[in-house]
């Protein structure tokens, strides 16, 4: 406007070459390599048990509810809040499902719908206090944690209720039948793996083209290829392993679909962008015309819905609702999100990171259990891993200044 564009660089981390790129994106690669390293480690120390088809299937079944809640928790944390109640809510919804289906004999689809609606209602109730009354989410959801823990006990009268009918168990323990009719190996599973790989590569290539077009400093070509080869190899490996067992678990499909939806929502939509802005600087977001209260409210509504879903899947997997269900699960979920690179102060974090974070926790749980490490040591090790991951984040951030 006043003078010709001056291209003099502002102070910023100068990035030259592969080394500098790696330093700058240490967190993303670090997470992926950490997962791989942990898997290789446990594969070796468990004499190959970790990656047996049946155990891979178990890994997905065991961690599905954590991953599903991590999706919602990421959004809550990015918006600058926290939800401590998700474990209790999950347990409460499982209890509710048991009462509705087992004791009242309600049809399964109707009961599922009712449970999800109740989950949404719980999220709305907590979100209301946080968003419109500005009560710190820590307090509101700490209260919620106690309330719903108590309500599950009351609903179940301190007893376990079960078993569920087959039509409900399928939610968690069902498998996608092989549409190609081969059965074993399950061709559908392999085909799904191939499609997923093709999609990931295609999206990656498209992204690179966009970056080149606008002169954004992209990933060096070698890295791009290596990263995609690793991811593709891992996906095909898992797909093949699953195909030699019972094929694709239903839960895996729900998980993948939800992950894709939420990744798209957070990264490509105005809604997602506004949530990041809200977490990054609430006052600035508000003065930019963003309805910050409503977004906070919606983040909790969404969390409630996902907690309900997780509760249903968990109850279906155990085939019974117990008053203990979901105890301390919120801590695993929150840990997964922070290991995945989200920031306590809000505005930072990715869906994919949260999912990988949940898998890191999951593989460690599973691997240590196979090794026969006691629950006491497991907790200690998980705690230290969480601390290390966050220290790594803070260190990285300070270095970049």
């Amino acid at each position, binding site marked *: 406007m*006043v003078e010709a564009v001056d291209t003099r*660089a502002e*102070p910023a981390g100068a990035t030259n070459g592969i080394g500098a790129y790696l330093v700058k994106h240490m967190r993303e690669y670090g997470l992926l390599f950490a997962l791989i390293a942990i898997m290789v480690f446990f594969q070796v120390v468990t004499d190959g048990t970790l990656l047996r088809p049946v155990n891979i299937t178990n890994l997905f079944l065991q961690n599905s509810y954590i991953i599903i809640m991590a999706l919602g928790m990421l959004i809550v944390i990015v918006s600058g809040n926290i939800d401590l109640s998700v474990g209790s809510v999950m347990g409460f919804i499982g209890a509710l499902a048991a009462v509705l289906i087992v004791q009242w004999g309600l049809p399964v689809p109707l009961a599922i719908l009712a449970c999800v609606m109740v989950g949404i209602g719980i999220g709305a109730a907590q979100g209301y206090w946080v968003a419109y009354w500005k009560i710190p989410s820590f307090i509101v959801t700490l209260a919620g944690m106690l309330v719903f823990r108590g309500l599950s006990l009351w609903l179940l009268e301190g007893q376990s209720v079960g078993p569920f009918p087959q039509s409900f168990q399928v939610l968690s323990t069902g498998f996608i039948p092989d549409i190609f009719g081969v059965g074993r190996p399950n061709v559908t599973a392999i085909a799904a793996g191939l499609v997923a790989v093709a999609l990931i590569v295609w999206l990656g290539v498209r992204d690179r083209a*966009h970056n080149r077009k*606008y002169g954004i400093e992209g990933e060096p070509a070698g890295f791009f290829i290596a990263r995609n080869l690793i991811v593709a190899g891992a996906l095909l490996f898992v797909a093949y392993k699953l195909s030699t067992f019972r094929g694709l678990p239903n839960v895996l499909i729900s998980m993948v679909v939800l992950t894709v939806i939420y990744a798209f929502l957070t990264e490509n939509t105005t809604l997602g962008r506004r949530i990041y802005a809200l977490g990054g600087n609430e006052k*600035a*977001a508000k003065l930019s*015309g963003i309805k910050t209260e409503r977004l906070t409210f919606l983040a909790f509504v969404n969390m409630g819905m996902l907690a309900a879903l997780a509760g249903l899947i968990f109850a279906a997997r155990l085939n019974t609702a117990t008053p203990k269900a979901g105890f301390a699960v919120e801590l695993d979920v929150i840990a997964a999100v922070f290991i995945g690179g989200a920031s306590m102060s809000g*505005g930072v974090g990715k869906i994919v990171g949260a999912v990988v974070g949940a898998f890191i926790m999951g593989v460690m749980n599973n691997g240590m259990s196979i090794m026969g490490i006691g629950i006491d040591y497991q907790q200690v090790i998980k705690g230290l891993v969480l601390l290390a991951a966050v220290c790594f984040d803070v260190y990285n951030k300070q270095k970049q200044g």
Partner: protein
Amino acid sequence: MTALLEMRSITKTFPGVKALDTVNLTVMEGEIHALVGENGAGKSTLMKVLSGVYPSGTYDGEIHYDGKLAAFSGINDSEAVGIIIIHQELALVPLLSIAENLFLGNERAARGVINWRETFRRTEELLRKVGLAEPPTVLVDSLGVGKQQLVEIAKALSKDVRLLILDEPTAALSEADSQALLDLLLELKSHGVTSIIISHKLNEVRRVADRITVIRDGSTISTLDARTEPVTEDRIVRDMVGRDMAHRYPDRERRAGDILMEVRNWNVWHPEHSGRQVIHDANLTVRAGEVVGIAGLMGAGRTELAMSIFGRSYGRNISGEVLMRGEPIDVSSVDRAIAAGLAYVTEDRKTLGLVLDETIERNITLANLKAVSTRGVISEARETMVAEKYRAAMNIRTPSVFQKVVNLSGGNQQKVVLSKWLFAGPEVLILDEPTRGIDVGAKFEIYSIINELSAQGKGVIMISSEMPEMLGMCDRIYVMNEGTLVGELTAAEASQERIMSLIVTD
């Protein structure tokens, strides 16, 4: 008379910016030394070097204090030898008493148990010295800014101050409080306290200063001696800006069109203290292509007026009307105000204007995401094109629009905020202190952008505490005092004196 402090060839660089370039400053024992210069000239940086906020080793040059080479590695070191700095933002804990604040971190205690008798006795003694008649148990929160300033000075005295540094001490004070503060400085001087006062108010500088050092763009321009002969304000201003006043503001063809926006009978109450009315019956108009100023002291209610109009972002029980081209518009929430054609560029860009950890691109599109998305899905390509367009148009200096704004200089950050609001397509822009904390070159660019907007027929409301800037840029100036618009002056009528007299005679 000997030199208490000598700063020799101080050079301080931040990544990409040379904030101080071989600055020299000599302060004599027992004098009041004024440090003047424009915002961003480097005064505060120099004081941070002196007080050890930037520790020894992070800058080049030498500091000699009391005849010895000093190497402060933190603020504790400088305080230990009697250098106390009082910042513009007061560092008092509002919900502690005066006595607790005075001895915070320096408690009168034996083995961790506070000796309250001693504390109160000493507090009363110190309060007497600064002329404050409040009891020591009063909460700082309940004092006005002027009295809080005095508490800060009392706190400095409690630490056996030898060199007192005051950063814009009177910026937020009323005329009477300012006079009292300046009198206190002279009083302290007679007791042998040396002080450095940073101020924009040249009349105050002339009143108390023995010598005046002018800093511009990180360099010492001159040190003027006011004891032998009076220094004129013109002389100081010339050194401060380095050119004649006439060329500080780009020319604009002034032609105001029809009335664009009108605010009628605007009343606002304080958001927490329900009995306190902050804005009294404000009426103002903005014509197309007109730059309208709102002058006033800090705390006069200008920001409150602007923010209450912009989507009720401030205050409660707001009443009154806003009209755009004669039609009433809905400004009951920020998004409605934006939709009705308003934009507000905040005075506090870091906490209210930008998402610092986000990229330039994402900050620019934040207030108008609709324009870069289809059914809620953002088009990255469109977004990048928009960002690139504004980078070129506003001359934002950055290697790429994917830089985080936290890495930009103040001037470039301000251009990002302006870009955000221009992209929202407003008819009337409210600019609150648009050039605060940015360097002279960037200021000129911001002024040029304002002129461009006016040429496009947009209305601009400008709030600024820098009087010359208001006089140089505005077609018409409203004067505000204690929440009331007390007068209106055209560019031809307006002068610093007339604005001040409107404020004072109210």
